[in-house]
């Protein structure tokens, strides 16, 4: 049961207001920007702008401070990232040894 992250207990389906966790910004943006009924308002919003914006969000073109403030701090504990760093260090070490070996034998 602990394996799934349900946003509220399974017992009793309550109203929207009872959801204990704040929804992730990704979940909200994917719905309010990309879904819902699209009818033209009097104020013309350039949809291309919005699409560009979502691309920017995906690429996270925001400052580190801003992202941390929003609770986006994936780079601090992303195991993939640390594995990658480890991989690079390892590769570096292997290459250095190889160079020494070649220089030594030459």
């Amino acid at each position, binding site marked *: 049961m602990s394996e799934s992250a349900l946003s509220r207990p399974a017992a009793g389906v309550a109203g*929207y207001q009872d959801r204990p966790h704040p*929804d992730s910004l990704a979940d909200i*943006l994917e719905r309010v920007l990309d*879904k819902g*009924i699209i009818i033209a308002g009097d104020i013309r919003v350039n949809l291309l702008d919005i699409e560009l914006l979502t691309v920017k969000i*995906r690429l996270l073109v925001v400052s580190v401070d801003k992202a941390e403030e*929003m609770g986006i701090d994936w780079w601090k504990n992303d195991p993939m990232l640390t594995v990658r760093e480890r991989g690079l260090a390892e590769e570096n070490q292997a290459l250095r040894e190889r160079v020494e070996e070649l220089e030594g034998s030459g």
Partner: protein
Amino acid sequence: MAEQGRYLYAVCRGLTPEAVDGIAGLGGGRLSLVAEGDLVALVSPVDLDEYGEEGLRSNLERLDWLEEAARGHDAVVQAAAAIAPTAPTRLATIFLDDEGVRRRLREREDAITAALDRVEGHEEWSVKVLTRVPDAEPEPVPVASSGAEYLRRKRQEQEDRSAGDRDAHVAAEKVHEALVTVVAASRRLPPQDPRLAGHQGTMVHNVAYLVHRDRSDDFVTLVHEQSDAYPEVVVDARGPWPPYSFAMLDEA
């Protein structure tokens, strides 16, 4: 004082003014209803300095502004969806006055009515399936004895990772097959970027499910069962959401 526009949150059926009393619109504006036939538009006044074409162009580029607007928009939509059939509109749908809103409702009445018919009595659930990230740090491995050995190891790591992703895709499909038995509709969404969503592991499945209110308990129970059945992945279910992903208009 700046000119005011009408921000449209959603189109509903049978929503009464008392139902939205006490809920704040964007920027603290007071919510009101604009009726046209059976349709009721949920609107609030917004400052056109902020929500006019020029203002929006620069504000939409500001993540803090966007987040506040998106959360405010969603809060109003949720309040409406909790009490009446609701078709949310896309963020930043703005009219100059109530008559503009009415005109658009008249023009799109059939399509909006069809969308409301589809979502009435239903709510949306978001289910994501992610690969499980090992809790333990991997054992430190000795430095590769040669370039070839190093490359072989890299290849192995890559293969292990793709095999893990493949297994997760298979599990996600099984979970999906089980869930669709109790839902009215489903819609696949692109996997989210971990940098914005903050998750770990690879998101192999991001699907919105339209679930009838009477079947919500069944759905949640099923999610738990599926989660237990496939411990190799993380099943993350969130909801209920207003039916954003299913209130789409048919092409006019």
